């Protein structure tokens, strides 16, 4: 990594560029004037949700191998508590679309998304899932971006992205969940509190 890139701090690399509340919820805040308030139930729930994202074992092509590498020993997303990859959509929280979605697969993806229990999140991993990537112009059978089929929370460019990039996206998703904001609010450019 060149010197120029290093100067970017870790938080600046995130889409929001801000740190959200990452302390353990339920902590006691001292209010001015001596009052004490415990953090809200919402915070507890969002903390739990953000730290327990169970992915669906869903990979269509090349990015699936990097997704496996993230699960592997060197990168190990179990450090964040994501390692409980569920094979059934009913028990999964996040669907990592790792690979191309073609026209025949699109209804299946939609079905899988519908079968998941709320709250559910989607990460589009790699160029194919974001926009069709290498298959954007010259093919007849590729969906030009998974967000035509299901709503996507986080996009990771790359073909395929490095394992660290997927971890980065997972941390970004965590931040989003902790902030409790919807996709629309973020798109409108509201600050993450």
């Amino acid at each position, binding site marked *: 990594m060149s010197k120029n890139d290093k100067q970017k701090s870790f938080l600046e690399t995130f889409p929001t560029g801000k740190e959200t509340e990452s302390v353990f919820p339920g902590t006691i805040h001292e209010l001015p004037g001596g009052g004490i308030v415990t953090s809200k139930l919402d915070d507890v729930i969002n903390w*739990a949700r953000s730290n327990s994202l169970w992915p669906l074992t869903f990979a269509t092509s090349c990015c699936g191998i990097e997704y496996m590498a993230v699960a592997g020993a060197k990168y*190990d997303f*179990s450090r964040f*508590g994501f390692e409980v990859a569920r*094979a059934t959509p009913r*028990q999964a929280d996040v669907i990592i679309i790792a690979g191309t979605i073609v026209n025949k697969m699109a209804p299946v993806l939609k079905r899988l998304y519908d079968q998941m229990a*709320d709250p559910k999140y989607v990460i589009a991993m790699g160029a194919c899932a974001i926009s069709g990537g290498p298959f954007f112009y010259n093919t007849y059978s590729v969906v030009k971006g998974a967000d035509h089929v299901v709503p996507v929370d986080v996009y990771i460019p790359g073909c395929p992205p490095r394992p660290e990039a997927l971890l980065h996206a997972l941390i970004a998703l965590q931040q989003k969940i902790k902030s409790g904001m919807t996709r629309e609010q973020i798109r409108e450019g509201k600050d993450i509190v």
Partner: protein
Amino acid sequence: MWSFSEIAKNIDLWLNDLVGSTWALVLEMVIAGVAVIGLFAALGLVLVIMERKVAAWIQIRLGPNRVGPKGMFQSMADTVKLLVKEGMTPDGADRLLFNVAPFIAMIVAMLLMAPIAFAKDFQLWDMNIGVLYITAVSSLSVIGILMAGWASNNKYSLLGAMRSGAQIVSYELSGGLAILAVVVLTGSISLTDIIKAQENGWWIFKGHIPVIIAFIIYIIAVTAETNRAPFDLAEAESELTAGFHTEYSGMKFALFFLAEYINVFIVCAIGATLFFGGWMPLHIGNWQAFNHIMDYIPSSVWFFGKTFFLIFLIMWFRWTFPRLRIDQLLNLEWKYLLPISMINLLLVTLIAILGWHF
């Protein structure tokens, strides 16, 4: 010395003074219920994080380490998430059975808590037919799984449930015969008596080779009975996606998940009681000084130490072995474990009659 039995006795006396014996009994039942549920939850949290750490270390990675100090709050986050996650009932499922099944699995696991001696004189229900009760109740757990598999209206679930049915029914036999070995040696089916009989040494050490064989068979059988790898055919992630709980989500799934871990704890606790002397400290024959030192370690520490050792053993199996195929699983039981445990029982009977054990 500080012990659970003194505390329990004092509470009993105090309540009797306060509200009279009938209400004291009711209150004690409530307290016991709450305590079991609390223990249930605490054990679930501890065992889940333990499994993930054991798996991680065997698999040359770190495991959960970012949520709370050293990742200790990881299973707490999972639990809260599962509590607030949508629990759906699929269209076409048998609604009643589908929703009741997880509770059956959990209630069976809870019932098995009753006769276990957690520490010296600390037992919810010291019944004189402890072993019989355990074997009877533990076979009920298959009902919850069968209900879940059938009611889901999912082919994977049905296959998983059928596999589980065949598996649990067969492995109960050799598990029961292995338990009988200890019963024969002790001459009693009360858990208290079995623990008392191990005062001068645990059965695994003083019962000759047949008891060691019985122990190995017991461990294999209970691994199969609790649907743990390498016998996790009822779930078989790579074959049946998630087996009998494919259609379960949210808290209903969490109950299955929890029941599995509680079952593992209970079978290990029973194994520790039967073969390793439960809460009984390590006593060796006539070494009075040594025995005396061992007595200073609280009995609950002994009990939980032994139980967690066995739990670790079962986890170790899970992260080492591949899964068996369904016909191989049944072959193993009917062609190997059952004949061996029958012959073994004969041998143990001989030892018991001739008084060869130490």
